[in-house]
């Protein structure tokens, strides 16, 4: 009982990369524990990041569990804390506590085809799953990644996505056609329908803007995916990460504990308050 569960550990920023510029800028940060014991995490879990004087924000851990030297976060600049993150330089020290929430049952998916469908900064929460699947390539069958952004400049992890090719089928898209873009033009759910992945022995994992998720799920079901083959994450406003503060409460679940990962057959029975 003596443990102060709200006290963050300290972590040093070891790497910063600007993924997307502009008003909806996304930067990737790698944090190395500077003090304290650190922690291990599983695919899909989140951490509460602090900038002292600004506050905390819950961010999904974008690095795979087997990466032990750092935790990676890709953060879109939207509010007080995330803007402060975008001001950071390598070497700065921030707060981190976690890991929070449940995780993707990656182990149970061995022997299956994995289909990832991401949009915008929604690639980050599923990225550790992709990395894990690629690292354990022999345990999985086909790996397919659908990912789209508003424009070519909104595509994050560009180099990493290119590196995936060979290990996975990668289908990129942008919302609007543009000079020099050779891949698919249109929304992510449409790209999905265009490629028609088979539900046979497959798991679909999707993350992105709520409206995209809604249509992706609709389309997956029309392709014959059953509810329990579809996984997504929901990210409500969170303050404590410990199932107390009530912010992320949806139905009987505190998403920070019971989520953020849900299979559609579970999620569809919760109120759509996310």
């Amino acid at each position, binding site marked *: 009982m003596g443990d102060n569960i709200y006290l963050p550990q*300290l972590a040093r920023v070891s790497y910063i990369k600007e993924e997307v510029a502009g008003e909806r800028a996304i930067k990737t940060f790698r944090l190395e524990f500077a003090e304290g014991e650190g922690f291990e995490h599983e695919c899909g879990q989140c951490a509460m990041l602090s900038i002292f004087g600004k506050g905390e924000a819950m961010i999904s851990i974008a690095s795979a569990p087997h990466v032990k030297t750092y935790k990676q976060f890709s953060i879109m600049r939207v509010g007080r804390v*995330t803007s402060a993150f975008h001001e950071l330089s390598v070497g700065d020290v921030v707060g981190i506590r976690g890991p929070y929430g449940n995780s993707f049952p990656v182990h149970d998916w061995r022997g299956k085809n994995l289909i990832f469908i991401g949009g915008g900064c929604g690639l980050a929460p599923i990225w550790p799953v992709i990395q894990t699947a690629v690292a354990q390539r022999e345990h999985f069958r086909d790996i397919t990644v659908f990912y789209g952004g508003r424009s070519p400049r909104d595509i994050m992890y560009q180099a990493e996505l290119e590196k995936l090719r060979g290990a996975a089928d990668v289908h990129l898209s942008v919302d609007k056609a543009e000079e020099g873009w050779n891949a698919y033009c249109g929304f992510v759910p449409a790209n999905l329908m265009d490629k028609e992945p088979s539900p046979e022995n497959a798991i679909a994992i999707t993350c992105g803007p709520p409206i995209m998720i809604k249509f992706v799920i609709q389309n997956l079901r029309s392709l014959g995916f059953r509810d329990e083959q579809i996984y997504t994450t929901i990210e409500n406003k969170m303050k404590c990460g*410990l199932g107390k*503060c009530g912010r992320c409460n949806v139905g009987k679940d505190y998403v920070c504990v019971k989520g953020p990962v849900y299979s559609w057959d579970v999620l569809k029975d919760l109120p759509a308050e996310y």
Partner: protein
Amino acid sequence: MELILEKGRLDDWIAALEGWQAFAPSQEDEVWGYRPTASPVRLDHPNTVQPPKNFAFPQREVFFRFEQVKGEPPRLTPVEPDAARNVVFGVRPCDGRGVVRMDTVFSDHVEDSFYLGRRKNLAYVGLACLKPASRHCFCKSVGGSPVSTEGLDVLMTDLGDCWLLASATPVGETLMQAAGALLTEPSAEQRMELARRHEEALARPQKSAVADVGNAATRLKDNFDSPLWEELGKACIACGICTYLCPTCHCFDLNDEVSGGKPLRGGRVRTWDSCQFPDFTMHSSGHNPRDSLGSRLRQRVSHKFRYFVENFGTPQCTGCGRCVSQCPVGIDIVNVVNRVCASV
């Protein structure tokens, strides 16, 4: 342990509780609240405006302090929860049941060191409600009783010229033992009087009642999409009275309060928050999963009568009636539950 305390000796008992800071309901500007005891302690209060929730879950609490010189790593200083031993007198059985529900929330999944740190040093001496403490009491219809000992360490019952004290926990026994010779064995008549008064209290009807609490969770689930929510929520003004005065509402906010700039200094602070405030669930993007009055009323009512039941097998609401009596526009949770549950 059941013992008798003469009416005039209550202050002596409180004085005998060495090492404990005692609190009891008193009035300040006609506001009944728990304050440090001042002789004479009467325990003739109606429902206090606020439940004794503050003792374990204060409205404002600092978790740690930070200090950071620009360009250097921050220095964090954790804060320990206040270790004072507090004993609270005059707690109504509904609020005692509220304590149990708060304990559940703050112990479930991960133990909240701040809540439990205070809680382990807290004792509640209850007071049986021989008549309803307010016209809006409905404890009996939500599984409680005016003489329930749930969450209480001692239950006091007014027998006219004396109190009968019944311990409900080992802590309660300790408190009673501290009274020494002040407490005497009850006579057979006094025991009978106690039974008679409790029976009477249990039999006395309450003006307000949740019609069928056993089926409320199911009915609320069935009627999640009912248009009644928006209709009943229409009058709501989105203030925090119902939640801040509730013995079981536990939602909170965390903020950094900055007290100095060079070097940066401040603390991370927990403050109560309310699901009835429009910004409670709003994302930074502006997206708000519960953006209407009806959806927020539904959240409050469903949490009390459905979600808590689904997780812990009992309604969260203890029927104290505060959210009803204090609502500026007369929204009555009993009426809401009954209407929604009865709708097809």
